[in-house]
């Protein structure tokens, strides 16, 4: 709220503040596609992902006053999304390993046949990872955050990010090797 108090000193500052807020709103809109991509991969479910994006936008806008202009808006939004997601998991509101989504996950993986059209179900593999590892693998591998940025978004030391990344990638690798023949891994070329 500091920014608002400071702004009430004079009309000139008021105007500048207004401009900043309009720019911030545009800023959030700019990052919606990336927030959606991350949420889709993180939750593995269209509806949960869209809800998570919705909550992130709303909270982001409500807390815009706490965002420091000049700092990285994208990382800040990812941080909000991370906190919301973890809170959801804690509250158990989201269907997790016992939910509907998981029935699918438990289906036996069909043995690798000659059927090269069968694509790996990446969602299934991602959802099998512990969420801490899934977040790191996605923030870095998909959203292309630096290791530092990922550490700040997740609020953990960089060493923790690196060990989660190592474990997450190694787990995915073994799932892919087990679940699919090499040919099936080639999604598109």
């Amino acid at each position, binding site marked *: *709220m500091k920014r*608002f*108090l400071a*702004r*009430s000193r004079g009309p000139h500052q*008021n105007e500048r*503040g*207004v401009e900043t*807020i*309009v720019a911030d*709103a*545009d800023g*959030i*809109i*700019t990052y*919606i*596609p*990336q927030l*959606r*991509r991350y949420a*889709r*991969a993180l939750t593995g479910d269209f509806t949960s992902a869209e809800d998570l*994006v*919705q909550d992130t*936008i*709303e909270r*982001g*806008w*409500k807390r815009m*006053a706490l965002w420091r202009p000049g700092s990285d808006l*994208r990382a800040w939004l990812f941080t909000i999304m991370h906190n919301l997601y973890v809170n959801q998991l804690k509250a158990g509101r989201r269907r997790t390993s016992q939910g509907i989504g998981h029935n699918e996950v438990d289906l036996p993986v069909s043995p690798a046949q000659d059927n090269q059209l069968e694509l*790996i179900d*990446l*969602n299934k593999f991602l959802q099998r990872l512990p969420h801490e590892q899934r977040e790191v*693998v*996605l923030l*870095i*591998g*998909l959203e*292309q955050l*630096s*290791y530092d940025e990922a550490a700040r978004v997740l609020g953990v030391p960089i060493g923790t990010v*690196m060990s989660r*990344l*190592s474990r997450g*990638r*190694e787990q*995915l*690798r073994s799932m*892919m*090797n087990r679940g699919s023949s090499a040919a099936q*891994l080639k*999604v*598109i070329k």
Partner: protein
Amino acid sequence: MTAQSAAISETDIHDYVDGGLAQERRGEVETFLSGNPQEQARVRSYQEQNRILHAFFDPVLAEPIPAKWQTSARRWPFPAKAVAAALAWIVVGGLLGWFLRGEITSRSAKDVDFARQAALAHTVYTPEVRHPVEVTAEQEEHLVNWLSKRLGGKLRVPHLADLGYELVGGRLLPGDQGPVAQFMYQEPSGKRLTLYVKTDPSSERETAFRYSQQGKVAVFYWLDRRLSYALSGELQKDELLRVANVIYQRLNP
């Protein structure tokens, strides 16, 4: 194993996969990998993971943004009285945007959508420090051949070095009706332009340059028979038009 390769850490391996290492260190990691087939297989698998993640989830980027999010971001009610003025401005901005949008839509919704997609792709990829492009300008021939093959038409990439814009490279993106190519240029100050290209085999239309302002991003777009182009940049309109003209001339010598 050399002394250098012995020093390759787990972090280096991941940094290599994610393209975060300086050129020299990359070389050292490559030397290390060439003598370690197991590590090499691991690195390939991780690179493949990143590629598959993008193949699966990048199409989400091209999904139209629901109107409710555009308005919720603009009209979220602040409790503080101090920002009533801000809200008024936001509403004015929203209304203005809405009217302008109406004006634009009446021209040709589909073409403007093309400009919007181009601006969106510009906004998403130009801030990338580590992976602005999939294939760099060093492999220009491969880049052009690959994208031509995927788009199903002969593409050409204009050189703009004399205008101060060096080709960075390009990438393949999902579009509404199939693959789209994006070429990226950069001037020494770091300012970037993107040229967004799609093919439409059924089109024989040619249009003049059209202009669209998408947030901070200015877009000039035009149809040139089977190819549609959109040039995007955070530039003044005149400056961008000058570049668009040069591109048009170089594509139609």
